[in-house]
């Protein structure tokens, strides 16, 4: 079982406080994604949980038992690294067997688990190859295999897909989600890619500079971002945030409207601007609209085929119930 509790966990590197005291609970069987811009401390947080870094304060509990001072191997967690960290001189079989060999498990049990993991991850044909002879996706699966055979209390993933190409990434995303639904083991997944976070997570933890900005299900974060940071970070393309007169009309310092909640109308509309760059994706078209009274262009999602070209005048009307309002501190106004 893998319920992980962080109680006022803090990390300092010298004088620099990377993670201010932080509380978080990861329930058993949950798929939790830590997401945030680079340098926000999400990988450090994961390494603290793994035991690869020592905490500067606070306590980590795994299944209610204090784990703060336990060495990584004793915490019963398995980690998948960004670079996969496979052992290049060992065959795939030996790579997967390594944690079991270190635990002194009997050979027949090892073989049984290797066969099971290889079968689940489509690695059976590659067991006797070296990691150097495998493709990126296969290496990733070996790294996952090495984690699975230990039957850990929880899996930790440190940006596991960032070295893969776009097509493979989508595939591996599915495989990891699939794995989670079969194993039902706790998984903590670190990424800077909010698409990965939205598609895979049961619960997303948005981090900025070591602070937890918001914790919630993907749709909670999408529908009710707690502050402007989360609003701008979650959702693709980004939410349009605007201040000034447009916000004042809604009694707020800042308002946010997602590109998909702006309708293109024939005349009138709240905003009038000129079409700048447009991105045609086939199913959707994203327009970057330059509005005279605003500094930044506004992103608008329109249907697949809209007869607007660069320089055309466009009229926009936000969907009234989809406007997010934020106060002077950037916090959401309910």
């Amino acid at each position, binding site marked *: 079982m893998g319920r992980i509790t962080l109680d006022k966990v803090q990390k300092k590197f010298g004088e620099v406080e990377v993670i201010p005291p932080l509380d978080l609970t990861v329930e058993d069987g949950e798929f939790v994604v830590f997401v945030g811009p680079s340098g926000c401390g999400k990988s450090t947080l994961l390494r603290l949980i*793994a035991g*690869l870094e020592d905490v500067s304060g606070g306590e980590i509990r795994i299944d209610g038992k204090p784990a703060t001072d336990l*060495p*990584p*191997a004793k915490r019963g*967690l*398995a*980690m998948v*690294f*960004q*670079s996969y*960290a*496979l*052992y*290049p*001189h*060992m065959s795939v079989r030996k790579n997967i067997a*390594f*944690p079991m060999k*270190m*635990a002194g498990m009997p050979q027949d049990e090892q073989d049984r688990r290797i066969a099971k993991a290889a079968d689940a991850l489509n690695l059976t044909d590659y067991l006797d190859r*070296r990691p*150097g002879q495998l493709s990126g996706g296969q290496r990733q699966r070996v790294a996952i295999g*090495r984690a699975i055979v*230990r039957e850990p209390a929880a899996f930790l993933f440190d940006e596991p897909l960032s070295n893969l190409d776009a097509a493979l990434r989508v595939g591996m995303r599915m495989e990891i989600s699939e794995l989670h639904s079969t194993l039902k083991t706790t998984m903590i997944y670190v990424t800077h890619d909010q698409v990965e976070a939205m598609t895979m997570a049961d619960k997303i933890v948005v981090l900025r500079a070591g602070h937890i900005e918001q914790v919630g299900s993907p749709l909670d974060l999408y529908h009710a971002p707690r502050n402007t940071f989360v609003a701008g970070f979650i959702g693709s393309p980004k939410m349009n945030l605007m201040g000034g007169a447009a916000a004042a009309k809604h009694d707020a310092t800042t308002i946010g409207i997602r590109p998909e909640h702006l309708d293109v109308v024939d005349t009138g509309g709240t905003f009038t601007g000129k079409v700048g760059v447009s991105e045609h994706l086939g199913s959707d078209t994203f327009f970057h609209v330059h509005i005279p009274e605003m500094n930044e262009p506004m992103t608008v999602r329109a249907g697949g085929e809209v007869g607007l070209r660069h320089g055309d005048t466009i009229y926009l009307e936000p969907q009234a119930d989809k406007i997010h309002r934020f106060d002077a501190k950037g916090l959401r106004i309910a």
Partner: protein
Amino acid sequence: MATEHSKSSARIMIAPAVFVLLVWMLVPLCMTLYFSFADYRPMRATFDAWIGFDNYVSFLTSSSFLSSLGTTLWMVGGILSITIAGGVVLALLLDQPMFGQGIVRILVIAPFFVMPTVSALVWKNMFFNVDNGLFSYLFKFFGAQPYDFLSQSPLFSIVIIVAWQWLPFATLILLTAVQSLSSEQLEAAEMDGAPPLSRFWYIILPHLSRAITVVILIQTIFLLSIFAEIFVTTNGAFGTRTLTYLVYQRVLESQNIGLGSAGGIVAVILANFVAIFLMRIVGKNLDN
């Protein structure tokens, strides 16, 4: 080097260097070959340009040949094992972050810059000397009888001297190899439950294997021709006569240039055997 023109001009520019190298190597080699078939003893004013394989036969059949071969193997083997074991340990230690890292690293490399003759003299007079050597003081301090290294175990003493000189080289190469090991691999092994000794054995050592073969190859080539250390310390006495030293004795002490040349050619052939053998191992190791 894309066009025909640049290719041919490159060849012309390389030519002088190739020519000098060839002359440098081929002329002495050919002269040695020529003398090895001659009975040439200048002190006795003997010169017979062709006596067939007589020199080879007498060099190979003399009892000193086999013993010198054995000595060479012992010496090279001993130095290699000390430098590699010590080099791995030092490389791992130097890789740890510590105060004054830069200075320590320079100090560790320093012995490599000391000339072989000088280091042999320093060791002979300052460490191994029975009356004034540091080791003698150390033995006396602990109440033991001073040990006369150079006459009691001369081969071992020379191995120590040369190993001291080559340890920095091994350390340097192995240190770069240690530094190229990804920390994630070690962390993964740590997560997998491998204690430090297992991490060394299963992760670090295999990672270093390539660098170790390179060290073995390069050192062997240089160690086969150890001369100054033997000359300065024991003069080839007490079973420290290596093949190189035997050749030197035949030429200069016996004043038999023909016999010495034959020995030289034998040494060249043996060294090539070793080199080919080692190259194949290294090649295999570098492949994967």
